């Protein structure tokens, strides 16, 4: 007797039909599960380190009570690149993972040039504009407005600060450098290669670390690196000389990031350096090492362009994607956060909301970071971060590549400048 069971045509058609129906049902369930569900709460996209402060702000300042709008604090990707990729795909799909986003300058340039951010002018009262100091207004005009429309408002106003070891300078009997010439001489005073001590260090790895430094130095030289002009050439030559001619800066910086740079400072390997305000908190976390005269903030050494461009300001701010699912609610939250009565209250929750608005500076008191900011603003040394008006991120990457190649002696300065000019011409 044969074990083979033959499938008759009727049975085949029946089973095939069953399989097709089952597949169709399963697909329907899957697709309905995947279908975009309109979220019920407004989604505010923030970075991890500010999330707790945002939660408290929303809870304690009574936004939900006043408007009836519930807010979900969600973490946005940490890096610029990841956020851009996420936004690009979601905007193409006609939606957005966030209704209101807290984002940095580089993201602002890309999203605004892509036309993905909503104009906000109708949401900003004259009272808010009057609250802006001239420095913050300059920053806003450069970085938050495009084609006559405001697409973002800064809640965070940061500057490149200059930090130094006062204890070391006192020990050596040396005064702090006042200008580029003084900085050049600091190598002789502090650098000891055998013990790994350098007068200064920087985080010069590519991907938005190196660019911060050459933007800072090029500003001091009186220009914008993305114009690839004489100021960039002067800046690159200066940095190269600090590394290889004067032994002032550690050449290994070219592959260091901020963590490595800070680590070297806290390990007593660096006499002075430029760093963002977060360094203030970083040093205080090392309680056994920390002493006030180890981390003193001073005015940066003045470059060839004079004192007015000794440092630049930049920062983070809020914007609303045009494709935000809860667009109207996001507008309400935006108005709430920028209101002159609320802006000063935000700094009670985190220094992340410290900025150069009159009301904020008045309410901020005299804590260390506020004092530093006031010192820089009062000295009139703050300019705005240089930008490439059209393709900022691409411009940063191209100039970083050229600068990194020159600062590791792969190409000469004339070659670097020729390459930089060609790349910037192509972008424009």
């Amino acid at each position, binding site marked *: 007797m044969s074990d083979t069971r033959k499938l008759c045509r009727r049975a085949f058609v029946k089973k095939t039909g069953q399989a097709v129906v089952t597949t169709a049902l399963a697909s329907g369930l899957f697709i309905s599960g995947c279908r975009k569900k309109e979220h019920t709460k407004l989604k505010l996209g923030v970075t991890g380190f500010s999330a707790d402060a945002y939660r408290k702000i929303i809870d304690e300042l009574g936004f939900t009570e006043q408007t009836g709008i519930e807010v979900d604090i969600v973490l946005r990707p940490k890096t610029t690149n990841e956020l*851009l990729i996420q936004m690009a795909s979601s905007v193409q799909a006609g939606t957005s993972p966030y209704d209101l986003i807290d984002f940095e300058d580089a993201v602002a340039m890309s999203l605004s040039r892509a036309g993905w951010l909503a104009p906000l002018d109708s949401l900003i009262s004259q009272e808010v504009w009057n609250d802006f100091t001239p420095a913050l207004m300059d920053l806003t005009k450069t970085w938050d407005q495009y084609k006559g429309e405001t697409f973002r408002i800064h809640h965070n106003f940061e500057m490149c600060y200059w930090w130094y070891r006062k204890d070391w300078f006192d020990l050596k009997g040396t005064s702090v450098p006042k200008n580029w010439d003084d900085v050049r001489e600091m190598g002789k005073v502090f650098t000891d290669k055998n013990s*790994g001590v350098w007068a200064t260090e920087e985080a010069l790895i*590519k991907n938005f670390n190196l660019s911060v430094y050459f933007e800072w130095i090029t500003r001091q030289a009186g220009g914008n690196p993305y114009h690839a002009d004489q100021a960039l050439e002067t800046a690159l030559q200066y940095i190269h000389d600090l590394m290889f001619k004067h032994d002032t800066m550690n050449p290994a910086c070219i*592959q260091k990031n901020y963590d490595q740079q800070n680590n070297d400072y806290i390990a007593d390997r660096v006499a002075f350096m430029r760093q963002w305000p977060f360094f203030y908190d970083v040093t205080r976390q090392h309680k056994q090492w920390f002493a006030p005269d180890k981390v003193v903030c001073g005015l940066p050494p003045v470059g060839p362009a004079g004192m007015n461009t000794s440092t630049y300001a930049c920062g983070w701010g809020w914007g609303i994607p045009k494709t935000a699912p809860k667009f109207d609610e996001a507008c309400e939250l935006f108005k709430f956060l920028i209101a002159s009565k609320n802006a000063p209250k935000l700094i009670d929750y985190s220094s992340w909301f410290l900025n150069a608005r009159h009301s904020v500076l008045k309410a901020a008191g005299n804590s260390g970071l506020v004092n530093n900011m006031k010192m820089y603003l009062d000295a009139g040394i703050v300019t705005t971060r240089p930008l490439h008006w059209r393709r900022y991120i*691409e411009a940063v*990457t191209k100039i970083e590549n050229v600068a990194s*190649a020159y600062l*590791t002696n*792969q190409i000469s300065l004339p070659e670097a400048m020729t390459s930089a000019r060609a790349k910037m011409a192509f972008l424009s």
Partner: protein
Amino acid sequence: MIFGNRQKTIWLFSLLVAPVLLLRLATAAYPIGKTFWLSLTDTHLFDNEHAFVGLRNYYHLLSDPDFLSTMFFSFIYIAASTLLELIFGLLIALMLNNKFKGRLFARAINLIPWAIPTIVAAFIFRWFLDDQFGLISHWWHGLTGQHIAFLNTALSAQMTVILVNVWKNASFMAVIFLAGLQGVPDEIYEAARLDGAGAIARFCHITVPMLMPLLITMSMYFLIWQLASFDLVYGLTGGGPGISTEIVPLNIFHEGLIFFKFGYASAVSVVLMAIVAVIGFVGVKQFKRYNYE
């Protein structure tokens, strides 16, 4: 037979094959075709540009010294990495194929580098190579009294990237070769020994020929795989200093997903695809040549 004639059999065949065929068309043929089409346009996500530009993107990239430099290092990177991985993989496999105490333990720890995610390995090595506090730099300082920044010059950064890649992948290569070695009958070695063949002769005339199909397969696999992977370089050097360690996939990532120049990035992708196809073709030819029964 379910259906009575040939025509019905063909219909049944088509019905059963159609889902898979459609799936492959949607997930492979369409993206490839779309990529090729995009490479002939100047599509940029921000500017909504979609003009047909013919071969202009190809002209730009092939006349761009930076891209040519990237291509050059990519070839060096995959060729040197694969060669060294083959050599070290084979040496490790030969060692692990011997009988010695703790062999099982040795085989297990051999896999540790491979088990570490590549991006994690990249970040670990960045710290290992830090000039001030890196473990490797510390050893170097202990030996020579000099602080060295391994990632600070083009040549040393390139060598470092290749060596870290070899460290990461040679162990996997070793496991495959070990499996191959265990398939070589001991009788062949015995016969050769009786005929007076030494260790080197046995290795050259028995081991290598017997492993040749495996050597070619793994070479092709690693050449193609490494040509398309970028996580190690991304995490370790970011393509720097300058663009000395930039490889083609990293270039595509920048152009496509950071600058959103879809047209230009697609052109680079098509070039990469062509290279992969050529390597694959050569590999298949070589495999057929050595694939004796």
